[in-house]
């Protein structure tokens, strides 16, 4: 196959795969939550409710797409697109198998961190553009929250980078042929999972949305597909973080017997289910508690992690 054709096939496959996964998560999350909460979840449309996604899509596409007259219209329209675009772009650097990836970027990990920083604009701008006090508070919380977790998120990955000697995700996976990085970098793994939860703004860090406090937070004024974009954006985010955890700490596509892409998919789904389980199990932090938690506990921990990892690498070499 000619190289450009192959790239396009891979690109389309990953794009479709990610979008289908994100849509499927709507169903998966509701079914899993139902299972854990002693209830059914969606089980009417299709077998086991599998057509629920289709029903949701039809509903969300045909709903009135309303822009409040008091909103800042251009920003209001662009905001939901930002989150989808930035999270989708992040997928470009994730290797699903030795040669199945969109770009083999030398600064892959930095690219992901940059995109994740950008995605918070979506929420902050949505909150601002809605001209609604609840949305505004949601947007403010998102911005503050970003300051809380973004720092230790980057630092938590420094250990992985040091061990692999590269920012390139493919090389990071290849460096895990002997041992997965979750073993030498367990602390880094834990910190990254926490940061990932905050990044996707899910319980216990769903402060910008915080239904019980802010009604629907930053997307209170959104309806139809614009709301759907936030929704899908969240699920793409969950998939992204799960894929990254698998890649950075659990050897990505590496594994016996099964073909590499399947390993990658299995690992990703395990973490996705983990994310859903966390949502079923935990209450929400208050926003100053999140900041305190980030700056006073997670940041020092990730710094210690870097120092200890660095020292060990130095001694070993």
């Amino acid at each position, binding site marked *: 196959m000619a190289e450009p054709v192959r790239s396009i096939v891979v690109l389309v496959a990953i794009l479709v795969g990610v979008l289908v996964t994100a849509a499927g998560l709507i169903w998966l999350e509701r079914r899993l*939550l139902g299972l*854990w*909460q*002693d*209830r059914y979840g969606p089980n009417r449309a299709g077998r086991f409710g599998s057509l629920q996604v289709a029903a949701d899509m039809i509903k969300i596409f045909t709903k009135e797409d309303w822009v409040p007259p008091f909103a800042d219209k251009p920003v209001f329209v662009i905001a939901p697109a930002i989150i989808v675009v930035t999270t989708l772009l992040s997928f470009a650097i994730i290797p699903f198998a030795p040669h199945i990836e969109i770009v083999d970027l030398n600064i892959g990990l930095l690219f992901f961190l940059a995109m994740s920083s950008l995605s918070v604009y979506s929420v902050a701008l949505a909150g601002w553009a809605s001209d609604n*006090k*609840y949305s505004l*508070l949601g947007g*403010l*919380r998102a911005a503050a929250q970003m300051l809380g977790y973004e720092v230790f998120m980057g630092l938590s990955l420094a250990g992985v980078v040091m061990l692999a000697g590269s920012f390139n995700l493919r090389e990071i996976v290849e460096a895990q042929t002997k041992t997965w990085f979750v073993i030498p970098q367990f602390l880094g793994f834990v910190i990254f999972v926490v940061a990932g939860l905050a990044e996707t703004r899910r*319980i*216990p860090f*769903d402060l910008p949305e*915080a*239904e*019980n*406090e*802010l*009604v629907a937070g930053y997307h209170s004024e959104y309806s139809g597909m614009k709301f759907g974009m936030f929704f899908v954006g969240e699920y793409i985010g969950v998939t992204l973080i799960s894929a990254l955890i698998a890649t950075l700490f659990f050897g990505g596509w590496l594994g016996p017997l099964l073909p590499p892409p399947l390993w990658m998919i299995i690992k990703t789904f395990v973490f996705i289910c983990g994310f859903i389980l966390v*949502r*079923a*199990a*935990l*209450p*929400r*932090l*208050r*926003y*100053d*508690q999140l900041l305190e938690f980030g700056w006073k506990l997670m940041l020092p921990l990730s710094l210690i992690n870097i120092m200890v990892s660095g020292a060990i690498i130095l001694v070993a070499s």
Partner: protein
Amino acid sequence: MDQKTDILQQLRLRFGDQILATQITHDDVTTLWVQKENAHAVLRYLKEEISDPFRMLYDVTAIDERLRSHRQDQPDGDFTIVYHLLSLDRNSDVRVKTSLTGDRPNISSVVDIWQSANWYEREIWDMFGIQFEGHPHLKRILMPPSWEGHPLRKEHPARATEMGPFQLPEEKAESLEKDLQFHPEEWGMKLGEEDTDYMFLNLGPQHPGTHGLLRIILALDGEEIADAAMDIGYHHRGAEKMAERQSWHTFIPYTDRIDYLGGVMNNFAYVQALESLAGIKVPEKAQMIRVMMAEFFRISSHLVWYGTFAQDLGAMSPVFYMFNDRERVFDIVSAITGGRMHPAWFRLGGVSQDLPRGWDRPVRDFIEYFPARLAEYDKLVMQNRIFKARTKGIGAYTLDEAIDWGVTGPGLRACGLDWDFRKKRPYSGYDQLEFDVPIASNGDCYDRAVVRVEELRQSLRIIGQCLKNMPEGSYKSDHPLTTPPRKENTMKDIETLITHFLSVSWGPVIPPGESFFRIEATKGANSYYLISDGNTVAYRVRIRTPSFAHLQMIPNIAKGLTIADLIAILGSVDYVLADVDR
């Protein structure tokens, strides 16, 4: 009795013949009359100077006396204001009444003695049109600002059919909407500090965190609450007015819906007040059935609180588990009563029917099933570190504040006071049951939760004893005023047949008098103050609910905290808006 004469003597000594009269009622509350001018001084004396003072303003209400015929032993007047004080040190109550004359009378406010009088006086203004001089914010509280008339006055119609068809033309809708606009100055709220302007956030009446129709207006500095004002009345249905047109018997189902999570717990206070008025003694079996059902509803109500409180803090799952368990309680309730949330099961003189055959099995199953679940919930909610971080030290008030604001129930016990009306004033055989009164010490959101969770276990213990010791006998008294009267008596002679016919068609005629009964309801002290004028309907029914008092103090404890904390406080206080507005 000693205490009663003691209070009277002390008051007579201090105020001489400013104390006009004492009144005999069907309850054991000392009732005395003072002149309007002296009321304020007497109340201050009772709160601040007398030994073992009456520190809690339990209730303030009014009576429109203009159409009442049986009040020969009382001073003349068109309206009566009733102050009901409670002393926790003495474990006794006193009722101070003062009569007002004229169509639009006025009296000086007691807000300077008890802050908690604020809402009570506003309610009286709203309902009776009585002015309180010196009140900081005498505005309508339950009715909309544009309402014409004062509903509990006797000339105000009780039925929509007496009022002409309702219309809502555009201008009226607009003006109604305009009435609801919030002007911080009117509420005595500042617009900002020196270098900050507050953001005013309208939380409710439709909001996922308010558990019903409640409007809180927050003055925010960032996310910090600088000031808060509460606007209630969105759930007002005029239960007290309805009581004046329903027969004594047909009002029972209305009480179920006062605290709509409490079910028969509401019946409990009402029928006991009525029974003391009618002089009915309830058979032992009926008493125990009542206790058992009331405790089932305590469990059901606390389960709703437990789940929704966790939900308020963002925990998604507990509410489903707890509603499932509540469904098990409802299965038992419906097996016994046929109803679920509002079975209206208690009757004047007993309960509606005997326990069905085999009632004990589901009850026993539940007693075996539930403790393990509670242990699981402890792990899931109470021991969760985020839950603790969100609730410990948040929304705390001291015991003194609690008493001052009229807090009762779990909210009072969370401050460390071992006060439960089931123990302190046992009724319906509670004195023969073994149970503990759980307390906690800090009075914060977490401690209120600790108390309620332990109460679930204690309620289960009480139900277990009811199961073991359910007495034989009748489920309803033989007294002629019981409702519905017993059918067996009808066929004996014409006299009993006529009595039966009248009691069923018109309802029983309750002898004139006044009676008050208070129970430890799910959320605190709930009481019914009934006034009969010797008729088939009540002359006046006053429903004192715990939620009203508890809600009033929330702005005070929320200041300086964040929105997220406010939601935690709302959840921990466990109010029901229907219980607030009635």
